[in-house]
């Protein structure tokens, strides 16, 4: 057996030369948030977030630029780890490790901690979801002397089994090796700019408004997260 092993090792050294196309790469992913600020929302409300925790993932980076799950049977890179991160912290927060192969990237498909896999009969939250949700917010909305304190648990649920919440966000990169870093940027303040708090104006003054999942406000945040102010992906020097 030793002879066999020696021959095998010798062959491995002598003959394992030559390029074989794409190479595997591995690099870190970091999340960068935006500090809380006052944003102008619908209906003259001014919104200030005090907490914004988000779960992003899994994320698949595809060669195609098309927004179609059918055109990404094989990804160029992926970030499978999902855990909550503070989207109001502008410092880099470690999100996990991106695994992939070299080559150009044209689009991204991803979820926010809630997946509906091919084999699942219904959507489910990943272990890294924010208390079982895609995002958890706390803040206040002010118009004149009226202030509403609110909390919201947002669930971004894929529309169909075997799909992602975001099927094809255009992004562009050419990853040549592992000497890079993925930077994911979100601005949770903007996600609330489309909300009209008139929906909750009748709430008692001292109560904290719990934004219902089926409310127009929750839907507006969801639309912003998945369509109007989606996470931005950049590959930067580490």
């Amino acid at each position, binding site marked *: 057996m030793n002879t066999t092993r020696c021959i095998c090792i010798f*062959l491995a050294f002598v003959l394992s030369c030559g*390029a074989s*196309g794409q*190479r595997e790469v591995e690099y870190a992913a970091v999340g960068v948030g935006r500090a809380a600020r006052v944003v102008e929302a619908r209906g003259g409300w001014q919104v200030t977030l005090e907490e914004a925790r988000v779960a992003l993932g899994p994320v698949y980076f595809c060669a195609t630029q098309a927004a179609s799950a059918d055109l990404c049977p094989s990804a160029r890179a992926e970030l*499978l780890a999902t855990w909550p991160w503070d989207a109001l912290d502008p410092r880099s927060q470690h999100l996990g490790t991106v695994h992939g*192969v070299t080559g150009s990237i044209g689009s991204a498909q991803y979820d926010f901690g809630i997946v509906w896999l*091919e084999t699942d009969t219904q959507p489910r939250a*990943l272990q890294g979801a924010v208390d079982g949700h895609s995002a958890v917010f706390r803040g206040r909305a002010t118009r004149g002397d009226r202030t509403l304190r609110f909390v919201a648990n947002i669930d971004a649920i894929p529309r169909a089994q075997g799909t992602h919440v975001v099927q094809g966000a255009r992004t562009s990169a050419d990853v040549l090796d592992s000497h890079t870093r993925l930077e994911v940027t979100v601005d949770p303040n903007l996600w609330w700019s489309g909300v009209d708090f008139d929906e909750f104006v009748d709430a008692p003054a001292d109560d904290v408004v719990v934004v219902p999942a089926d409310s127009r406000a929750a839907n507006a945040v969801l639309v912003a997260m998945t369509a109007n102010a989606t996470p931005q992906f950049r590959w930067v020097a580490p």
Partner: protein
Amino acid sequence: MAARAGSDFILERDVLTAAPRQDASALLATAPGVYVSRPEGEAVAQEIQLRGFDAEHGQDMELRLGSVPLNQPSHVHGQGYADLGFIIPEAVRAVRVTEGVYDPHQGDFAVAGSATYELGVPERGYHLRLEGGSFGAFRLSGVWAPSDLPEDTFGAVQFRRTQGFGRNRGAQSASGMAQLAVDLAPGVRVVGHVAAHGSRANLAGILRRDDVEAGRVGFYESYATPSANMQSALATHLQAGLDAERKGDTGGRTTFSLWAQYTTLRLRQNFTGFLERSRQRPEWVGRGDLVEQSNRDFALGARAAQHTPRLHVRDWLHGRFELGISARTDLIDQTVNLLQAPQNETWDQRVDARVGAASVGAYADADWQVTSWLRLRGGPRVDALYFDLDDRLGNFIPSSQRKTHLVGYRRTALGLAYGPRGTAELTPFRELSLLASYGEGYRSPQARQLEEGESAPFAKVRSAEVAVRVTPGGPERATLTAAAYYTSLSSDLAFDPTEGALEKVGPTTRRGVAAHALLRPAPWLVTSASVTYVHATLDAPPPATADNPDPPYVPGRLLPYVPPLVARLDTSVHHRIPLIRGVPLILQAGTSVTVLSPRPLPHGQFADPVMLVDQRVAFGTQHLQLGVDVMNAADLRYAQNEYAYVSWWGTSEVPSRIPARHFSAGPPRTVLATLELHL
């Protein structure tokens, strides 16, 4: 039979039986540069790698049984699919392996080369062989070859059964072959043969290497889901052939062959786990990617050739010509469906097609001696192929679109392929030959890839070789061959596990060297040893697709899955020791060693090298022999094949979509006790 190139090998029975062989396909492994495996079980055709070509199930290697071509055009599981499992090894007299395309007789699929099995039983009498041992393996073979009949007249039968070396690997098969040679008149000989075969096997399938390394599934196991455990294959094969030869009074010869063949394959495999979505009903998803492929092919064919008498133009210039034609027609029905285990409910239809294919080929072959030291052989060959395709699922209408037509796409196409083949052989001394060969061959396209009226795009291969052959003491005692070769292929194919079929990868080139020694230093000792090294590269980026619009490409990129180095040793001692009362004791011992260098894989990875040792020991009398066959004697854990693709078997919280290494396990050490009766 004259050699057509330096790498034209005739493997005789003493070499073929030197070491244990699991089936007839394993006989090919003795040829230089050939590696044969059965990663998809006993009912699916063997996979062949030859001189840097991953010939898969036959796409790059023309396989024949006598005059009958075995490659099936437009097969649903792979172009040129040819299962050698129906051939009973005991009935094989010799195998001729021509590496390269230098002979005008070589037809469709002779890209890396061709192999022809010659039937016959030189050891006349009645033979029975029983094998049994590891993993519930049992094999019974019987051959009757009456001593008063010529050696190409015989009958043979075999039954095989095994529980397999791991979960879901049980298999059974039965084969029968018979051949009758009759001399109808002086110079007129007719040989007819029939063969029938059926085989069913369960398949363990492919495993992710990361799942095995993490202990989530055993090396020889399969995934514990119904969709994985319902993998199976059923193959049947029926063929009949008639060869007639008439020798003329002046030295000419006329040959005529007629054959018919009916083959079926129903194959259920799950390569990718749970990733597929129904195209008919897109809301159906995640029911298991158990892909059922079905192929039925009824083929009729004929060959005819006229050999002129030897023509003497001058004392130093003489030779002969041969003109020949070949024709075949195939009627093929094929389907691909997705099944939901365990009830095998169909949840998607991918292919439902009927293919009518026909081909006509013609060639001229010259064999001329020009002076006593130069011999020229070769000539042109031209082939025409016709396709008539009824693609019943063509012009598919997605459920999201308004129906404006009925589904279906019927189309026809025709293509021509032609090219020269030839060899010049210099023989400055009786025991030394220098050979230079060049040839152009082709592979026909898969009919379903053709468009209406398209000039069928053949994959064109150009092959060149220079070789030196030395026969010290005569070719019966020793033949030493060294060759350097170059092969370019205009459009190569590679197996895509996600489709379960072959996909185009672009043009490729192989440059290699090979050395072979066949030694018979004593009547009781035979040794065949070979080493082949090849540098196989992709010459251009793979074709762009919608999901991969800019395929990465590095010039000089190695072809994946092809081992650069293949070495093989077969050696056997077959000795008779006189005992008391003159009854000789027969002793036989044989060993084969196969070495594969690390195979390049996608994404800069290399598979582990492989070194397999098989051994045979037998002793007994002329009428009764007992023995032991050991395959993979070192009990090496190895992968018969490795792939890189995306799969998901539910072994992680979310699926990875980065191509991962997958493999099919090679058999562990297998020990078989053998008993042979000869009457």
